[in-house]
């Protein structure tokens, strides 16, 4: 059993008639994901070029197709409502790819999800993939391979880079979760570590952090208190200047807090190997697993 998603995952794509939604619905289906349905208000009744039925509301999609997981590609200003709609329709896992959602919206959305026991991945994230089983998001499926390494990351392409190295070194992945680059996200490092803790397919975890916030420090704390799997980490942004946002809304050192040095120190203190380059991650994991 992989975490969060597996072959039984039944996906509804919110914003399926948009450019990104349409493209990735097809990509996911090609990868083998059960893309059961899509939602675009006002376009209910049509089918996509890939033959996926489109509904006006998530509730209809759930009722008609048994979707249990949603992936969201709607524009930022409609995304918070789309997330809540999914939760209200009983969707248990929502992956929000959309970037640029106001922080205030997320602050209001998260308690709504919590009340409904819905887990959110993202926003502003590449999604989640359990190689060989299913992918829900936008990551290129072909660079992944099945195996024992769990990956959790705040970034998108940097994760692809790391996964690429892992696969090339023969290290497959159990599940890769892109938790997103925003300051306020639904699932953080701690949550992901807890999921991997119990996952018997996962033998080692790669944690790819970056400057901003203190999620990495909190993860290091948890590992220091006893974590049953090997962990290798990487922190992006050692050379980032203070007070400047580095692309991701969450990647900023403010008031001297959230620096790469602090995070690296916390991991080292917790006994976690911290790689200097993406390629080194694979080397470290290989060493730990052999």
């Amino acid at each position, binding site marked *: 059993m992989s975490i969060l998603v597996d072959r039984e995952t039944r996906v509804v794509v919110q914003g399926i008639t948009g*450019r*990104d939604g349409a493209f990735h619905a097809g990509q996911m289906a090609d990868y083998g994901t059960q893309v059961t349905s899509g939602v675009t208000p006002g376009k209910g009744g049509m089918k996509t070029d890939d033959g996926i039925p489109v509904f006006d509301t998530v509730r209809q999609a759930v009722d008609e197709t048994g979707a249990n997981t949603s992936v969201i590609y709607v524009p*930022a*200003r409609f995304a918070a409502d789309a997330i809540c709609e999914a939760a209200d329709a009983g969707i248990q896992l929502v992956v929000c790819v959309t*970037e640029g*959602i*106001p*922080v*205030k*919206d*997320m*602050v*209001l959305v*998260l*308690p709504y999800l919590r009340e409904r026991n819905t887990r959110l991945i993202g926003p502003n994230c*590449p999604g989640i993939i359990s190689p060989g089983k299913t992918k829900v998001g*936008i*990551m*290129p499926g072909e*660079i992944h391979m099945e195996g024992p390494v769990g990956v959790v*990351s*705040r*970034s*998108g*392409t*940097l*994760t*692809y*880079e790391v996964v*690429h190295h892992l696969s090339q070194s023969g290290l497959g992945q159990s599940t890769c979760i892109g938790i997103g*680059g925003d*300051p*306020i996200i639904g699932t953080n490092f701690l949550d992901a570590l807890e999921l991997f803790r119990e996952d018997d397919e996962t033998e080692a975890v790669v944690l*790819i952090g*970056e*400057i901003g*916030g*203190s*999620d990495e420090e*909190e993860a290091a704390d948890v590992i220091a208190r006893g974590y049953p799997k090997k962990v290798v980490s*990487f922190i*992006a*942004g*050692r*050379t*980032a*200047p203070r007070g400047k*946002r*580095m*692309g*991701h*809304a*969450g*990647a900023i050192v403010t*008031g*001297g807090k959230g620096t790469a040095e602090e995070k690296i120190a916390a991991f080292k203190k917790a006994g976690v190997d911290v790689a*200097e*380059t*993406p*390629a080194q991650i694979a080397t470290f994991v290989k060493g730990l697993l052999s």
Partner: protein
Amino acid sequence: MKIHEADARRIFSRHGLPVPPSELIVSADQAKAAAEELGCPVVVKAQVLVGGRGKAGGVKLAATPAEAAEKAESMLGMEIKGLTVEKILIAKAVEIEHELYAGIVIDRRSRKPLMMVSAAGGIDIEEVARTSPEKIMKVIIDPLWGIMPFQLRQLQSFLSGEREVARQIGEALKQLYEAFMAVDASLAEINPLVISPEGKVWAIDAKINIDDNGLYRRSELSELRDESAEDQGETEARKNDLSFVKLDGSIGCIVNGAGLAMATMDMIKHYGAKPANFLDIGGSSSPQKVLAAMRIILRDEKVKSILINIFGGITRCDDVAQGIIDAKKELGIDVPLIVRLTGTNEERALKMLEDTDLITAASMDEGVEKAIEASRS
């Protein structure tokens, strides 16, 4: 987005906060007239988007209109931390008995707004937090309910034992929170919030940062952006939907994805050189974006080579290749370009670039090493 004190004061006033009257001026004459109208003494405050302007001579008291004019005159055109003073706020001065601090940010851990107050105001609050944490009270605000009366009672009684003063403080904190939420702020700060000898509470400074992502809701706020406080490249990047931060090294970088872009910078450092910038072309790239990125980077004369590091996912490598070709044609590039392209449509892209004089690299490590080497030759 940072906005000027004058704009933040206006937002605070609109939400009922007790902000002393003020006028924004651009000349000494105007300063005099404003001081006359407001009544002296007044404070003459340079409007620049950096902290520490007081220490840099950007805040002065004036006892007469003539003095206000004189101080404004000397302040106009002055440079503070690289920014030129073009506008000045003339604000009615208030007598100060106590200086307090009140601020709100979004707390990443609780995922909620956090209000922080201190009886030690007027100084650097991070310094207070480090040295005298007991002088600070923090409350997490649940935005679904807003700041609650019991929280205001906790905060106000922490700041003042005088009933009427405490009441005014509570009122001000409530209004500060309302202003914070109304403009989608990421930070709202009154430092100092002062108590006058007569027991009247005043917000004599105002700072607001606004969440860029929320700006679409209030287009009037977008107009408060001061582009003169930004690097020219940052302004241009924003208009082209790129993320750009200028640094002081010699290796220019064009990368897709913020994490990969940071990792690229870090790796340049790791291999012994310095990056000239952070630049993320974002997810759905286009040739135009690559062209704009190139133009921004080439403006920096310290740049000795440019590394293009792309891991295609949504980003299509052929789009990037087209952008490079266009840039070479339009911009007349005279520094070496090192290109690492992998992922979606990689092969088509490499074919497009076959007949150019670009240096290609098969991996990120190789790309970085070649870019450093090229920058040194």
